[in-house]
């Protein structure tokens, strides 16, 4: 390893400050005593904002809502996506390229383009303002992502595995269930993390389709956080940290997986 030059060191510090600085400022704000935000520096640190966010507001409920929607989306897209991705990677059939391009095109849809019909559809079937109903439109971004990332994972598994299973008398479906699916577990985990993060962060559909305050997801709750009196910056910061910390931990722990998953579909076309 070469000794880094001054230029490299400066660039590293500059990037770290830019990317982490605002996040640390938010953490500091969340620990800042409420009456002192006007002062240049806090006299002491306190967890008061966390206490009032977690117990004074229905924030835990909101976190549970987000967990439910994100888990539903992940489960439902991975179940369908894994089967389809296996077929796309290992079986011969017509329309393969079309399906992959269609999935890519759908993931580029501006969500606003489908909001009005989806609103009417969900209302007609009684699933507007329902967390289960919200997981359905989430397939617009989650399913294409699943298809692309998982197809590239299944392609990396040797074809011989599939052929050997077929020679041993498995049907294509059995070969998928018994042989390839277990081997694709790391790919499934990567995809699950990505889909979960995207679903957890989604805003426009959640804002449009949910109207009962008790059903709000984390982004909606944070965007609407109290405008009753003055902006409660300390509480907003505390809520943001609570909403973000699990994702930051997840990301740092699974850094390599996330990077490979994000670039899998994009680079190895």
């Amino acid at each position, binding site marked *: 390893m070469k000794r880094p030059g001054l230029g490299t060191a400066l660039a590293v510090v500059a990037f770290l400050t830019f*990317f982490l600085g605002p996040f640390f400022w938010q953490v500091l704000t969340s620990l800042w005593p409420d009456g002192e935000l006007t002062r240049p520096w806090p006299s002491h640190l306190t967890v008061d904002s966390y206490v009032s966010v977690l117990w004074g507001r229905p924030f835990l409920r909101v976190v549970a809502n987000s967990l439910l929607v994100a888990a539903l989306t992940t489960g439902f897209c991975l179940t369908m996506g894994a089967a389809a991705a*296996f077929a796309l990677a290992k079986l011969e059939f017509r329309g393969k390229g079309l399906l992959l391009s269609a999935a890519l095109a759908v993931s580029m849809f501006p969500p606003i383009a489908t909001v009005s019909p989806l609103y009417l559809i969900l209302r007609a079937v009684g699933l507007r303002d329902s967390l289960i109903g919200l997981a359905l439109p989430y397939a617009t971004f989650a399913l294409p992502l699943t298809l692309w990332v998982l197809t590239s994972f299944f392609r990396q598994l040797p074809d011989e595995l599939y052929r050997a299973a077929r020679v041993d008398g498995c049907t294509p479906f059995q070969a998928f269930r018994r042989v390839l699916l277990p081997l694709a577990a790391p790919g499934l985990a990567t995809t699950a993390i990505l889909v979960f993060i995207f679903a957890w962060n989604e805003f426009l559909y959640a804002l449009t389709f949910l109207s009962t305050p008790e059903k709000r997801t984390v982004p909606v709750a944070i965007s609407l956080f109290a405008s009753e009196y003055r902006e409660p910056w300390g509480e907003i910061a505390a809520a943001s940290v609570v909403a973000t910390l699990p994702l930051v931990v997840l990301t740092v722990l699974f850094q390599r997986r996330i990077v490979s998953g994000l670039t899998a579909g994009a680079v190895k076309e």
Partner: protein
Amino acid sequence: MSGGGSLERERRQAYLLVAPAVVVLAGVALYPILAAVWLSLHRFILVFGERRFTGLDNYAFLLSDARFWSALGNTAYFTLVAVTVELLLAVPLALLLNRAFPGRGLLRASVLVPWAIPTVVSARLWAWMFNPEYGLINRMLPGSDINWLGAPGYALHAAILVDVWKTTPFVALLVLAGLQGIGEDLYKAARVDGASNWRMFRSITLPLLKPALLLALLFRSLDAFRVFDAIYVLTEGGPANTTETLSIYAYKTLMRSGDFGYGSALSVATFLCVVVLAAVWLRLLGREEGAR
């Protein structure tokens, strides 16, 4: 392997395996897009239940709607500036991440932090940074009392900064993946020939990186063009509609005014802009593939 019967069976099972995904994609994307086009041909006010076919009236109104053109201009400006800045920052960042130095792991993990933070949360975080009285930015600029989110010239640029912070990491990762595909041999040969670092960057790195850069541009510009979350939280399109993008205008028309006819026309127009943008990028990418 076995004969035609087995292949036939394989094909049948393949269709069964992809069928659920195809049905869901059609249900959540294809049908709604067609339905949006159909809705846009109506006068349709949700609360009054009023709905009648008016043909292209909504589109005729759209073409003469100054607010639409201003939203289109804001969206285009946002996309152009944000994506350019992101690329200019992402290339040096990726070059840095591609080198071996102590603390690379730390940098690699930390750039993912803004990516993982929900856009709404990052917008709230920056709104507090931009707070005119107590925000970090004005604290660091003594004597400054700029109202970053309330002054027309500043607000759109503040939104661009939030987008740059949030998505530069993703662009850098795409560029990094491209860099890792370039063989070390080329650099070795160039070094033997006495090429400078800058020369190697210009003559080896940039040309070989071009496909990755174009791909990043494609993804990011389509994504930036649909911007909604950050601007909705920062300014809701204000002050005086100077940060109102197409998605924000369409959302307000649909959900605040309950005008599903004209709102759908705005949504369809946004969709068509994205299609045109994608077609242009794909042509460029195709030309690039053809040249190689």
